[in-house]
C-alpha cells in the first residue's frame, strides 16, 4: 500500500491527489464522479448505528479475521486508503446512476453494506466509476454517461462492465476499487486492464446496495493492482449481513492448501495470444510445484446461453422498477401513467438494456418459460454438479479469463454477440456461484495485458490468493504485467508536477 494511506491525510496531499486524478482521468474516463472530500467524514450514523448489530458484528469479525490472517489488522491496512466504487453501488452523497439516463439525476439516499464496511475499516470513497449501463456489457461502451478507455491503449475498451473501476486501478488513480460481477464484470475488465479482479463466492459479500442486474448471480467484487490490498478488502467486506438474506458467513471446511490445479481441456476459439499465455501459465504452475490435472467440462458449451437466459430473465424483473414514477427520469409530457412509464423507459434506457429486458421477458413468458428459463436453471444444476465433481480431484482450476484480447471500441473487432460469447469462462463460475480471481499474467507483444482465471469451490477464496500469490512471487521484480505507459504512480506524478510532498 505504501503511500496510499497518506493521500487523504491532509489538505495539501489531498489537493495533489485530486489534481492527479482529475488530470489523469481526463483522457481515461474511469470516473463518473470524483470528490475525495465528500465522504472524508462519513456520517457518524452510518458507522455507529447501535441498532445495526450485524454491522458492528461484522466489523469486529473482520478485525479478528484480519488479525488472525496477517498480524496487521485490516483496519490499519485500509486506514485512510482511498477507493473507488462502481456507480451501481450505493454511496450516500453520491449519485447512483448505473450509467443510465434513467437514473442520471438519482442521489443515493443510502450506502451499500460493502462500502460501509470499507469505511468502517478506515478506507474512504473518493468517487464513482463508469460502467456498462446497469452492468450490461463487456466494454463499458454501453454507458450512457461517458466513455472509458483502456489505460494501455485508448483505442481499446477497458472491458466491462466494471470498466471504470478496473481502469482507475490500472491507471493508479486508486489502489482498490469495488465493482460488481454478474457474469464476469469484474474479472473481464481486470484482465483487460492488467489488474487483479476478484469475484467472491455468491453470498460471501452482502449485495445490499448493489443495484441488481441478475440477483442470483450478482456479487460485489474487488479490483486491485496488488494482491494484498485485494485480500484486505475482501476480508473487510465479506460476511453475513442482516440486510441481505442471501449473504452468508463463510462455511468452515475448505482448506486453503492447493496442491493439484485443474487445467481445462478442449478449449476452442481462443485468441492465439491468450492461448499462448494460458499455456505459459500452466508451465509456471508446474514450475512452482503444482500437480496439474486435466479437467473436462462437457457443459461448457451451454454456459453462455444458460447464463444469458437466467441473467436477462432476472434483469427483466429487476429493471422493471425504473419507470419514472418515484425517482429518475420523468418525461416532459405524458397523458397517462402508461404513457409516462413507456416514455420514461424508452428515453431512459439504452439499446443493450432494452434488448436484455426484452429477452428476459420473452424467456419468462408462459409457453416459453419451460423451454428457456427452466431449462437454463437445469443446465445451471448440471454445471454446478460437474464442477463439484471436478473439485473432488483438484483444489483449483485454471482457465483464461477471457478468450480474447482487449478489443477496439465499437463493434468493429467484436460484435455485441461475440462479446457475449466471450463470457464463457467467467460465466461458468457465476452460474456455479463459486469464487474466481482474474490474475494479470502476461503482456502481449503489443503491450496488452492478458489475465488468467483461477476457480475454487465455494468459500475457498484463500486458495485463489495462495496460487495467485505464488505466481506473483515467481514473477518477482519483473512483475507479471507492466504498468501502462503515461500512468505513473501518484508520488512520481506529483514529484514531476513540482509537489514537494513526503508520501512515505
Amino acid at each position, binding site marked *: 500500500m505504501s503511500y496510499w494511506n497518506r493521500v487523504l491525510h491532509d489538505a495539501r496531499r489531498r489537493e495533489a491527489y485530486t489534481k492527479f486524478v482529475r488530470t489523469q482521468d481526463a483522457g481515461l474516463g474511469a470516473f463518473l464522479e470524483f470528490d475525495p472530500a465528500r465522504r472524508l467524514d462519513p456520517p457518524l450514523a452510518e458507522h455507529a448505528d447501535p441498532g445495526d448489530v450485524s454491522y458492528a458484528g461484522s466489523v469486529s469479525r473482520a478485525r479478528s479475521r484480519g488479525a488472525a490472517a496477517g498480524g496487521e489488522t485490516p483496519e490499519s491496512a485500509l486506514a485512510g486508503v482511498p477507493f473507488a466504487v462502481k456507480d451501481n453501488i450505493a454511496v450516500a452523497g453520491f449519485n447512483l446512476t448505473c450509467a443510465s439516463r434513467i437514473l442520471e*439525476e438519482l*442521489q443515493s*439516499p443510502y450506502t451499500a453494506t460493502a462500502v460501509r464496511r470499507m469505511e468502517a475499516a478506515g478506507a474512504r470513497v473518493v468517487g464513482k466509476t463508469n460502467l456498462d449501463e446497469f452492468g450490461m456489457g463487456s466494454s463499458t461502451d454501453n454507458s450512457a454517461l461517458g466513455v472509458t478507455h483502456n489505460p494501455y491503449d485508448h483505442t481499446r475498451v477497458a472491458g466491462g462492465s466494471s470498466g471504470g473501476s478496473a481502469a482507475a486501478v490500472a491507471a493508479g488513480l486508486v489502489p482498490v476499487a469495488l465493482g460488481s460481477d454478474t457474469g464476469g464484470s469484474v474479472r473481464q475488465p481486470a484482465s483487460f486492464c492488467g489488474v487483479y479482479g476478484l469475484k467472491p463466492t455468491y453470498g460471501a459479500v452482502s449485495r445490499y446496495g448493489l443495484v441488481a442486474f441478475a440477483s*442470483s448471480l450478482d456479487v460485489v467484487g474487488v479490483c486491485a493492482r496488488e494482491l494484498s490490498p485485494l485480500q484486505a478488502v475482501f476480508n473487510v467486506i465479506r460476511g453475513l449481513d442482516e440486510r441481505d438474506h442471501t449473504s452468508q458467513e463463510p462455511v468452515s471446511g475448505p482448506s486453503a492448501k492447493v496442491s493439484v490445479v485443474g487445467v481445462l481441456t478442449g478449449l476452442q476459439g481462443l485468441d492465439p495470444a491468450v492461448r499462448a499465455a494460458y499455456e505459459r501459465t500452466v508451465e509456471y504452475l508446474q514450475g512452482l510445484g503444482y500437480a496439474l490435472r486435466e479437467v473436462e467440462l462437457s457443459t461448457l458449451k451451454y454456459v453462455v446461453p444458460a447464463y444469458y437466459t437466467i441473467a436477462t430473465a432476472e434483469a427483466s424483473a429487476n429493471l422493471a422498477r425504473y419507470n419514472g414514477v418515484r425517482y429518475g427520469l420523468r418525461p416532459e409530457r405524458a397523458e397517462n401513467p402508461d404513457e409516462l412509464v413507456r416514455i420514461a423507459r*424508452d428515453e431512459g434506457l439504452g439499446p443493450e438494456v*432494452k434488448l436484455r429486458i426484452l429477452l428476459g421477458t*420473452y424467456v419468462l413468458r408462459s409457453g416459453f418459460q419451460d423451454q428457456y428459463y427452466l*431449462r437454463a436453471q*437445469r443446465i445451471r444444476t448440471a454445471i454446478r454438479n460437474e464442477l463439484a465433481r471436478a473439485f473432488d480431484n483438484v483444489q483449483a482450476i485454471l482457465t483464461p479469463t477471457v478468450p480474447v484480447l482487449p478489443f477496439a471500441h465499437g463493434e468493429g473487432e467484436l460484435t455485441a*454477440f461475440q462479446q457475449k460469447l466471450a463470457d464463457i469462462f467467467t460465466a461458468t463460475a457465476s452460474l456455479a456461484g463459486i469464487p474466481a480471481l482474474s490474475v494479470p499474467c502476461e503482456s502481449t507483444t503489443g503491450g496488452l495485458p492478458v489475465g488468467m482465471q483461477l476457480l475454487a469451490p465455494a468459500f475457498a477464496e484463500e486458495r485463489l490468493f495462495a496460487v495467485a500469490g505464488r505466481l506473483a512471487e515467481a514473477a518477482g521484480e519483473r512483475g507479471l504485467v507492466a504498468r501502462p505507459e503515461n500512468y505513473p504512480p501518484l508520488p512520481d506524478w506529483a514529484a514531476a508536477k513540482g509537489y514537494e510532498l513526503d508520501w512515505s
Partner: protein
Amino acid sequence: MENEELRVTAELAEIGLSESELQSLGVAVSELVRYFATMMEADLEELEPTTHALMAHNRTRADEPSAEPEATAESLLENAPELEDRFIVIPNVL
C-alpha cells in the same frame, strides 16, 4: 422471433418500440433466442432447476422497526419528480 411476439413481449416489458427499434432489436433478439435454443441439445435427465445460487437456510428478520432508518422518507421524496403534499404525483386518465 415474429414481430408480433416481439410486440407482445415489449408490451409486457413496458418498452415502447419505434419501427426502427423493432427492426434492430428484433434482429438482435432473434439472434439470441436462436442461440438459446442450443440448450435444447443438453441432456438434463431429471435435474432439478437451480433457483438460488447457494441454498441458504431460513433467514428471517425480527419484527422490530428499524431503530435508525438508514434513509429518511424526506430524502427519498427528494428524488421524486413531482410531489404534492407528500404525495407522489403522476398524470391520470380523465
